[in-house]
């Protein structure tokens, strides 16, 4: 099977959907001015679809997001890019008070088939305001769907599903994962929202990881295998709605679990996942559950400090080893 990078996979998914449905359009900053847009995700799309369907705007995240909502409310299927997830904060009123709630507040009159795609993640020395992963904020708001793919296969399949979904979908990408390669079928396929994926099967411990941490978890699993520990790695893929059944089935099998995410620990998505699992599967646990997350500090500029801020393969393996003392 051919291999694509995550970037290429997202690009292909968007192109296919734009070809399929003329209501899909792109809006955001620097989509024309920088080749393929700020991160290259839109390579070739401006040229193919023209300036009516690929709209470059001034720097106005609040208006951008609101316009996305308004366009979605009036029959279109917009994809808005928020250049770095950190800038989502400028658009929060439109995301939280409008996109998430318009349908509910109007008693179902409004349908908002929009996608907000945004690159998140640290590891490129971009410092505190260009490196965050704020998925927890979005997962917390009823009315938003949140996806966070890791592999090229998942990225393409989830993008297509997100565009076809008739609701606001927050599609969170990881800047460092963009260049990761993986198999992507030629024929069309979709990855459904709300389904987790077992990335590696195992028997002794479940590692639940998101986005770039999936790669770290798989690496940790390889190292643990050399110590005779068989780790199962599960990628939720969609954070809201969460496929808790798959996570619990895995924990019931292994009796131990660790949740790994790049975002800092306090009130991160790990707290929610851990709680949901313990609430249901308490009497299946043979060890206390653990989270391995980013440190609760702003992300530093210095590269080595930056690397210390996020979970490492050692920290993940270390947490697993602790659990296996039980």
């Amino acid at each position, binding site marked *: 099977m051919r291999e694509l990078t995550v970037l290429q996979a997202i690009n292909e998914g968007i192109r296919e959907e734009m070809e399929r449905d003329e209501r899909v359009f792109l809006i955001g900053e620097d989509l024309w001015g920088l080749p393929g847009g700020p991160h290259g995700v839109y390579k070739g799309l401006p040229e193919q679809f023209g300036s009516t369907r690929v709209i470059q705007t001034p720097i106005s995240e609040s208006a951008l997001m609101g316009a996305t909502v308004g366009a979605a409310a009036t029959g279109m299927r917009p994809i808005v890019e928020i250049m770095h997830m950190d800038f989502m904060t400028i658009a929060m009123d439109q995301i939280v008070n409008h996109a998430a709630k318009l349908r509910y507040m109007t008693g179902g009159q409004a349908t908002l088939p929009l996608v907000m795609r945004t690159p998140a993640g640290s590891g490129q020395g971009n410092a505190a305001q260009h490196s965050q992963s704020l998925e927890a904020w979005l997962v917390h708001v009823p009315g938003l769907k949140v996806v966070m793919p890791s592999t090229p296969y998942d990225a393409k399949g989830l993008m297509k599903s997100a565009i076809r979904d008739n609701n606001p979908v927050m599609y969170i990408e990881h800047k460092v994962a963009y260049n990761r390669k993986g198999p992507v079928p030629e024929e069309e396929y979709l990855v459904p929202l709300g389904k987790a994926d077992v990335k590696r099967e195992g028997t002794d411990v479940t590692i639940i990881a998101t986005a770039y941490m999936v790669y770290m978890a798989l690496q940790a699993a390889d190292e643990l295998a050399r110590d005779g520990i068989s780790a199962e790695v599960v990628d939720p893929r969609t954070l809201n709605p969460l496929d808790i059944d798959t996570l619990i089935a895995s924990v019931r099998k292994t*009796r131990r679990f660790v949740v790994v995410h790049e975002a800092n620990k306090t009130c991160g998505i790990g707290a929610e996942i851990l709680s949901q699992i313990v609430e249901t599967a*308490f*009497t*299946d*646990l*043979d*060890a206390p559950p653990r989270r391995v997350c980013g440190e609760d500090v702003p992300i530093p500029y210095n590269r080595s400090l930056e690397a210390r801020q996020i979970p490492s393969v050692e920290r993940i393996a270390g947490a697993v080893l602790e659990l296996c*003392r*039980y």
Partner: protein
Amino acid sequence: MAVEIRMPRLNWSQESGTVTRWLRSPGEHIKTGEPLLIVETEKAEIEVEADADGLLHIVVSESRPLPVGALIGYLLGEGETAPVVADSPPPGEARAGAELAIVAKRESRGNSERISATPIARRIAKEQGIDLALVAGSGPKGSITERDVRRHIDHLAGAGAPGPGSLGVRELNRPSPWADESPISLSTVRKATAEMLAASFATAPHFYLGITVDMGQALRLCATLDPQPSITAVLIRASAIALAGHPEVNVSYWEGALYKHSHINIGVAMATSEGLLVPVIRDADRLPLSATDERLRQLREKAQARHFRGDEMSEGTFTISNLGMLGIEEFLAVINPPEAAILAVGAIVDRAYAGTQGIELRPALKLNLSIDHRALDGADAARFLADLKNTLEQPEGLA
């Protein structure tokens, strides 16, 4: 104002008690502190005193186990009538009863709650009827994990190799009843003792040290005292002195740690018609011989009457068992958990010694010390025993 009399909690692990008999009659005027009733617990029968003044009204007179906190009577004021106790208590009382039950359960669970076990280990243990107290934990800090419970289950089923903390004991078959025999159910005390001894023998690795003691000097000393102390009293006194000099023996082993006791409380095994009791002489190192002997006499009387205060039956740190008066020359006793050692005393018998003018006969008795090897090694135990022998053979400081 009616004062409730409820089933008292007399030791920290007690879950229930039985009203054995009331010492006073209904309607009698009771004063605070007067003995009121006898309650049987797992350890012994204990005399309970009144907490208040009042006219006695008995609610529960017959003998059946009740949870700690259950209502058993009232002390009423003049002219008061007792509250009606319906079959199902009124909601407030039921709630209070439930609260007490929760407190009692919490406290009684104290024993098993100190057992660290993972949620799935607890679940499987509960489902399979396994007592976690008997399962050895291999997890951190000795927590019991699923693996430990499953191993335990396998052992009971006779399958698999014994693991750590297990003796690979096969469950024995129940003896087939003979036609003319019906099983006698054991009293609470006997049952508790049986279980305790089984657990002690199974979990503490016993080893034994024996020594012969020339009691000549000690007997001469006793003859000078009035009243003449018993041999057991002498042994208690000597052991207390020896323990004071060897604090490493006055310990308990529990879950990977040694607990050194700050008091020397010596229990004395006593046989009664209802089974074995071990009342405790507290701070035995502070009592001179005559006081020790007096205390021992008191406890023997209480043992016959089976009236003990709660604190007379608990917190022993060392036990002495003397079967010499029954002609036994030596024996090996089972340790009284959670103590580290027990001293088995045999009869005084004239034994041959090498003297200055050839063979002499001297009155000597054999001591056998059983030791929990987790708490104490041979050399330390031997030094203790040697000092004990010295204390007895050169009894200047004994009195």
